[in-house]
């Protein structure tokens, strides 16, 4: 079953009950919002706590700068996403569905609202809309819940995790796969990617699980020039040497994350690129936790100074696991993989730029 090229039909929902969670488990579906958490595990945890009062929070915030796949999906298949949400509501006995859609993603929002208008009165009655602020951390699950509760899209301390309050936070693509599984009985076998950076046709594609990054790149028209590296999984993903990445099969274990595949052309300085992204991630900290707020700022500054490489590595290790949300962890994984893959460039950054200026 395919997500993007299927027709977005409005049809009666399949009958599903608690047993659907077993199907979900067998299918191996994992979250497509970035963390690849097993969907069935989360549903079980919410089902256990629901007293007919669960909440389904449909995460369409898509705060990742290069990602377009959630928007594209909401525009192409709004009924499929809604089906996934209504199926979740039935299985988990929810009284409420919240569509949390990026404030600036107007076409996606209008598409979802347009589809909603065609649903039955009782279905429409439980759905509301929340506009996610255009900040990176606004899509983190506790930030989404905080926004719905109190109008603040900042992460909160866990526990309590949302599932402990019978709130299911689920990415829109994950919900579309849920709906496809419930309708066809076949395990979801595709994944949405956003091809970005030095690729001929940047944009969203759907590929079968197991497709290599190289094959996906070919569908994007190939790289515009010789590629140096690929950032697999967006800003919380990891860097890989281009040739190694090209051979990587995009399986559930591959660390697809949010599905962004960013190609870095060989003519660009990787260290400057990495430093710019670190500055962005530092600025997007919600500034609530010291290790994240001070740590990411210091990391971003130290990035472009090779003399500080030792400290850079130590700080990157130290900030992990020391925020209320996983923002510092994502940034640290990103940076650590960069230091490995671009070891030579980090070591000789000043010299490289001096040579470039002279040349």
């Amino acid at each position, binding site marked *: 079953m395919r997500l993007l090229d299927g027709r977005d039909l409005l049809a009666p929902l399949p009958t599903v009950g608690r047993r659907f969670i077993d199907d979900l488990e067998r299918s191996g579906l994992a979250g497509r919002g970035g963390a690849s958490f097993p969907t069935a595990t989360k549903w079980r945890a919410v089902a256990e706590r629901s007293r007919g009062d669960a909440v389904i929070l449909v995460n369409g915030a898509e705060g990742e700068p290069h990602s377009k796949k959630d928007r594209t999906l909401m525009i192409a298949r709004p009924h499929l996403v809604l089906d996934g949400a209504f199926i979740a509501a039935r299985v988990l006995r929810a009284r409420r569905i919240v569509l949390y859609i990026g404030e600036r993603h107007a076409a996606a929002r209008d598409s979802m609202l347009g589809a909603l208008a065609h649903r039955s009165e009782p279905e429409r009655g439980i759905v509301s809309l929340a506009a996610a602020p255009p900040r990176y951390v606004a899509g983190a699950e506790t930030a989404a819940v905080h926004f719905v509760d109190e109008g603040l899209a900042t992460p909160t301390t866990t*526990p309590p995790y949302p599932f402990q309050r019978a709130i299911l936070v689920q990415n829109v693509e994950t919900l579309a796969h849920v709906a496809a599984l419930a309708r066809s009985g076949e395990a979801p076998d595709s994944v949405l990617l956003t091809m970005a950076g030095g690729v001929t046709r940047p944009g969203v594609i759907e590929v079968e699980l197991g497709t290599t990054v190289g094959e996906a790149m070919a569908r994007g028209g190939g790289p515009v020039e010789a590629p140096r590296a690929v950032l697999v999984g967006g800003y919380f993903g990891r860097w890989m040497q281009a040739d190694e990445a090209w051979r990587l099969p995009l399986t559930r274990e591959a660390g697809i994350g949010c599905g962004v595949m960013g190609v870095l052309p060989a003519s660009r300085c990787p260290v400057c690129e990495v430093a710019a992204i670190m500055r962005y991630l530092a600025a997007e900290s919600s500034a*609530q936790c*010291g*290790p994240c707020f*001070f740590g990411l700022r210091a990391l971003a500054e130290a990035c472009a100074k090779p003399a500080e490489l030792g400290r850079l590595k130590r*700080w990157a290790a130290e900030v992990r696991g020391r925020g*209320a949300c996983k923002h510092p962890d994502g940034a640290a994984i990103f940076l650590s993989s960069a230091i490995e893959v671009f070891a030579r460039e980090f070591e000789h950054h000043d010299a490289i730029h001096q040579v470039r200026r002279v040349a």
Partner: protein
Amino acid sequence: MSDERHLVVDRIKCDGRGLCAEILPELIRLDDWGYPILKPGPIPEHLRPLAERAIDDCPVLAIAMRRAEKRS
């Protein structure tokens, strides 16, 4: 199950004045900005009383003891 406990810090509450690290340097050190880094693993029995003091003395009540955390 044993009565193993771990230290946890509420990262949003903690304002990094580092009193906890002064009280319990065996398990808590500070990063370059003054925020606590916890030694992983359970609190050894003989350090329990000091851990309790660190918890009580934290000016913003950001630090606590918890049984090993389980998800779901």
